[in-house]
């Protein structure tokens, strides 16, 4: 049998159910990888003792014949999900040492399905970033490097730690959250699968809020089937999140095991052919289109006319919601407190010292666009543009069943690059943000390597609450692309 850490979720579940191994053995094998690759700085908190205890309990359940969907599967959790009794920082100094007295719905669902937590992964502060460089706990290193170049590359972000640990075979799967591309872009940078479900598919309860109308938890894994399985374990209606969809959870894994796209209409949006995209990515996209055609899909050119406005509209909506959500960090009830001469001074000192540069920038942009006299010009305008973006997708989906696009305009870049100008960093998410603004599901599938030997992903976007069609198409793309590369040394 292959090494336990190479198996992935579906094969681990199969091996465990055949009693070829135990959850304790599986946990120990993966904890060994955590030791081996600690230099990546992918975890903020490791929880080996809890992992062993959860694995033991899992073995006991299995012996009793009570195995859940993810029984005995070790997972890493983005440090944005509140975990009862385990520090949850959101990558921020202001939450350093915060130990939630409750468990997020998504993680509670995973533990109920039998999964085992090995630790909490590093991320951009409050999920605001595309490189993992804004974390108070330091950047994460991408396990991939350019051929013949030893410089450290970023894993993407904000779920950078969650992507790196899966790419480095430290865990078979992890949770992330995606507000404007925070699952899909790091998945592309790290050569793995990342899925953002339809807004409302997974509960946001207990997930540290960034932009509430956009935030959505989702899985990162090394295969489409594993992403489907993990999503199945995370999803479900939750009365504690008023935007959680009251829908049953489909058999996502069954969809992922049906890579049949014969007759499926795959839309290719012409507005995604933009200047500034690496030529190799455009070439890979064309290759992906050919692969889908060869698999029997019908390729349809579609138009999403407001694509270029999604990014600037997002940078009004997301900061506006973040400035409101982050108002709770005042040094009174939890988190950091920096004393001041009076109450206001204490708030200002706490927030000034507790938030990093990018978070402060977005809180200020958000405060400005929501302030009296500017609300209509900025915030309302952005919400109107959002209507037009959603309408574009609706019209496109009259002509096709899924959309195929690149995930990111570049491969992973070096740590420290693109840091001079915030807007340059924002452009990383140009292909992922439109679907986020419309609340649609998207998945990044690793589809090839560039000439430097770095992985590149392609994105499929589905109709709202039709992850199943998207997963079928993703499985077909995965099969055709046959991406088997591993980061050298992992």
């Amino acid at each position: 049998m292959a090494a336990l850490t190479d198996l992935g979720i579906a094969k681990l579940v199969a091996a465990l159910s055949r009693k070829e191994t135990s959850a304790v053995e599986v946990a120990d094998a993966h904890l060994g990888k955590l030791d081996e690759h600690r230099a990546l700085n992918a975890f903020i908190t490791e929880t080996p003792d809890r992992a062993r205890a959860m694995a033991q309990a899992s073995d006991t359940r299995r012996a009793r014949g009570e195995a859940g969907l993810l029984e005995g599967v070790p997972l890493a959790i983005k440090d944005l999900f509140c975990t009862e009794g385990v520090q949850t920082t959101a990558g921020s100094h202001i939450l350093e040492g915060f130990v939630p007295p409750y468990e997020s719905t998504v993680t509670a669902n995973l533990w109920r399905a039998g999964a085992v937590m090995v630790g909490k992964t590093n991320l951009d502060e409050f999920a605001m970033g595309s490189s993992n460089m804004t974390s108070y706990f330091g950047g994460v290193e991408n396990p991939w490097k350019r051929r013949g170049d030893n410089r450290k590359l970023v894993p993407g972000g904000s779920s950078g730690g969650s992507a790196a640990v899966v790419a480095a075979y430290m865990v078979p799967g992890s949770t992330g959250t995606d507000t404007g591309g925070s699952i899909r872009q790091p998945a592309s940078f790290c050569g793995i699968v990342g899925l953002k479900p339809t807004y409302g598919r997974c509960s946001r309860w207990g997930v540290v809020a960034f932009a509430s109308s956009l935030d959505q938890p989702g899985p990162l894994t090394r295969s489409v089937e594993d992403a489907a399985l993990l999503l199945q374990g995370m999803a479900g209606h939750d009365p504690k999140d008023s935007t959680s969809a009251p829908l049953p959870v489909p058999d996502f894994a069954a969809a992922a095991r049906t890579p049949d796209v014969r007759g499926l209409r795959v839309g290719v949006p012409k507005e995604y052919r933009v200047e500034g995209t690496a030529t190799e990515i455009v070439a890979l996209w064309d290759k992906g289109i050919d692969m889908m055609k060869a698999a029997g899909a019908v390729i349809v050119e579609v138009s999403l006319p407001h694509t270029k406005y999604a990014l600037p509209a997002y940078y009004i909506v997301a900061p506006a919601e973040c400035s409101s959500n982050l108002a709770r960090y005042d040094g009174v009830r939890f988190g950091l407190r920096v004393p001041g001469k009076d109450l206001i001074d204490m708030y200002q000192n706490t927030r000034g010292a507790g938030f990093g540069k990018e978070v402060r920038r977005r809180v200020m942009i958000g405060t400005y666009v929501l302030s009296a006299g500017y609300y209509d010009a900025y915030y309302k305008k952005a919400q109107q543009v959002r209507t037009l973006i959603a309408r574009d997708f609706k019209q496109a989906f009259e002509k096709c069943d899924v959309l195929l696009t690149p995930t990111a305009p570049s491969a992973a870049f070096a740590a420290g690059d693109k840091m001079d100008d915030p807007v340059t960093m924002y452009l990383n998410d140009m292909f992922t943000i439109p679907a986020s603004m419309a609340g649609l599901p998207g998945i990044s599938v690793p589809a090839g390597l560039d000439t430097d030997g770095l992985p590149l992903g392609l994105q499929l976007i589905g109709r709202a609450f039709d992850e199943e069609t998207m997963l079928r198409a993703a499985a077909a793309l995965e099969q055709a692309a046959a991406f088997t590369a591993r980061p050298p040394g992992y």
Partner: protein
Amino acid sequence: MPLDKEAVARIARLARLKVPDEELAPLAGELSGILAWIEQLNEVDTANVEPLSSVSDVTLPMRADKVTDGGIAAKILANAPGGAVYIDPSDRNAGGFFTVPKVVE
């Protein structure tokens, strides 16, 4: 419209953020850059377009207005940064207080 130092100081005060004086000018540059880039939205004709505040089609659900938990004061106060004060130290769930700097002289 570019923001000047004074405008940035005003926004920082509104957002309850202490920003050192020497950071105001560079921040004014950065924020003005972001806002200038955002201005491209003015190219879009949005006359008679309804603003979209939520992508979910569902009407927000109603629930009965009743207490569903309680007796967890200790949990609520567990992370109090200034330390909590309990009404009855022998029963922390009986209730307690967060502490803040003196507000009234």
